[in-house]
């Protein structure tokens, strides 16, 4: 159903009329010092692609690159323990894995999930007049850079770690029965990069209400100081021409909105509530808040494109 020619968050294969298989893989180098947290974050990040496709994770396999000669094996045990905790929290089963000797530590998972073929959520199926909800605050790439630089105090590290460890499971389950049109998760391309990807080649543009976008407060301070990962600038170079900054938006906002996220939230495209039902954006936001996805916010809407696909910041 969805493969390389139509890049999405995960590959989707129709097994039968009622079953589609969702497969994804993701791994990276440590972003926090604590191995247990790193394992939890890497797993939350890998599982997220399945949630972004509207699926339920079923099985997972570990991928490990480990410098066996230099690092104590207890580090690896902590990482894998953290990953296993998140897989279990997702209701999936860890069924194996593979490790290689690697001078640089890496960890991640390949995850397989199930979905009904009619309810697979792609990312480019936007529709003008719908709204956009983001379920986690932005800024983890900047915070991770500050952590790397030894600038972030313990409470900032803890807060960011908690956000990155959080599964997108509750957010995904909250979408059940709602008028959702499209969904993706915010990761390496940053909010604006993923938004640009969503509209590219469609009839739509996106209009973000900049002041409504949830941001980790310290990320603003660090962005102003120039603690910005190189990936942010790559994202700006790649998608800057598709974005349009409104008058009065401070320049550092672009750095935060293009900030590569680790285990970021879902960006959900959903109809507005109509008079008779609450299965639209306002209704979903209420459900998300009630379910504890506390940072969720309606951050923009989808409009018809003019001459080209754009992401506007107003």
């Amino acid at each position, binding site marked *: 159903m969805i493969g390389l020619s139509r890049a999405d968050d995960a590959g989707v294969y129709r097994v039968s009329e009622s079953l589609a298989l969702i497969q994804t893989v993701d791994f990276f180098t440590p972003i926090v010092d604590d191995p247990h947290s790193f394992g939890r974050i890497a797993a939350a990040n890998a599982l997220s692609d399945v949630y972004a496709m509207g699926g339920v994770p079923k099985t997972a396999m570990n991928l490990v690159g480990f410098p066996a000669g230099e690092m104590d094996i207890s580090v690896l045990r902590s990482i894998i323990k953290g990953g296993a905790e998140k897989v279990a929290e997702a209701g999936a089963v860890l069924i194996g894995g593979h490790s290689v000797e690697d001078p640089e530590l890496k960890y991640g998972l390949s995850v397989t999930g199930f979905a009904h073929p009619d309810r697979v959520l792609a990312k480019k199926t936007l529709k003008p007049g719908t709204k956009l909800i983001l379920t986690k605050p932005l800024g983890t790439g900047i915070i991770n*850079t500050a952590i790397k630089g*030894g*600038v972030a105090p313990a409470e900032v590290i803890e807060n960011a770690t908690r956000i990155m460890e959080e599964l997108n499971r509750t957010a995904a389950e909250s979408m059940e029965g709602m008028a959702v049109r499209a969904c993706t998760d915010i990761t390496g391309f940053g909010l604006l990069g993923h938004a640009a990807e969503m509209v590219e080649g469609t009839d739509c543009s996106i209009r973000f209400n900049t002041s409504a976008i949830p941001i980790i407060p310290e990320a603003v*301070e660090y962005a*102003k100081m*120039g*603690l*910005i990962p190189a990936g*942010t600038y790559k994202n700006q170079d790649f998608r800057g021409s598709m974005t349009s900054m409104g008058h009065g938006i401070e320049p*550092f906002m672009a750095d935060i909105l293009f900030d590569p996220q680790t285990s970021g939230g879902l960006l959900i495209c959903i109809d507005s509530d109509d008079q008779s039902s609450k299965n639209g954006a306002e209704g979903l936001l209420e459900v998300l808040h009630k379910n504890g996805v506390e940072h969720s916010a309606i951050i923009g809407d989808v409009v018809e494109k003019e001459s080209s696909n754009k992401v506007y910041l107003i």
Partner: protein
Amino acid sequence: MTQKIDAKNQSCPAPVLMTKQVVESESPASLAVMVDNDAARQNVTKYFESQGYDVTVNGTDGLFEVTGTLGTEANTQANADQGARPEVKAEANSADNNAAAQKKIMIMVATDRIGFGDDTLGQKLMASYIKTLKEIDGELWRIVFVNNGVKLTIGDSPVIDDLKELEASGVDLLVCGACLTHFNLMDKKDVGQVTNMLDIVTSMQLADSVVNI
């Protein structure tokens, strides 16, 4: 004269942290930072701007010199404040301002081990002491290393990572230059800034309390 930092071959956030260290410890009126990638160019520019510096950038693809210059007014203030802790930049981050309002603790480290008796135990105690210093939080202002204490700041010291962490968190580390020369360790020093007796004496005067180890 414009001071220079070579931050080539450094990936983010290292160039910003190198710049930050010099700006915070010396508040130079003018500072040039050499970088070799665009992300570092933009980040160092942003850092300078956040600290109230005017910025000019020279160079092209692959090699840039980012120069920060303090405005005239701030400049005068910086000169007047020379030798003192750079609290001149009012809009600097709030953590710094809090630190300014807080007590300033200075620690004078004149040995690489704590106490007399067993030397192995003494070295372990020192390692543990340095590791635990971060618990003091914002009030720890400056650590001065003299005599045998300078051996804690060289590359293979057991506490080198802890000292780097303290330095990154904003604690000033001053290392006695004469002592480094005496032990022939000048080029092995891996953390902190080389200092002299005048700085040490001035530091003691500025500190709210001085702890001798």
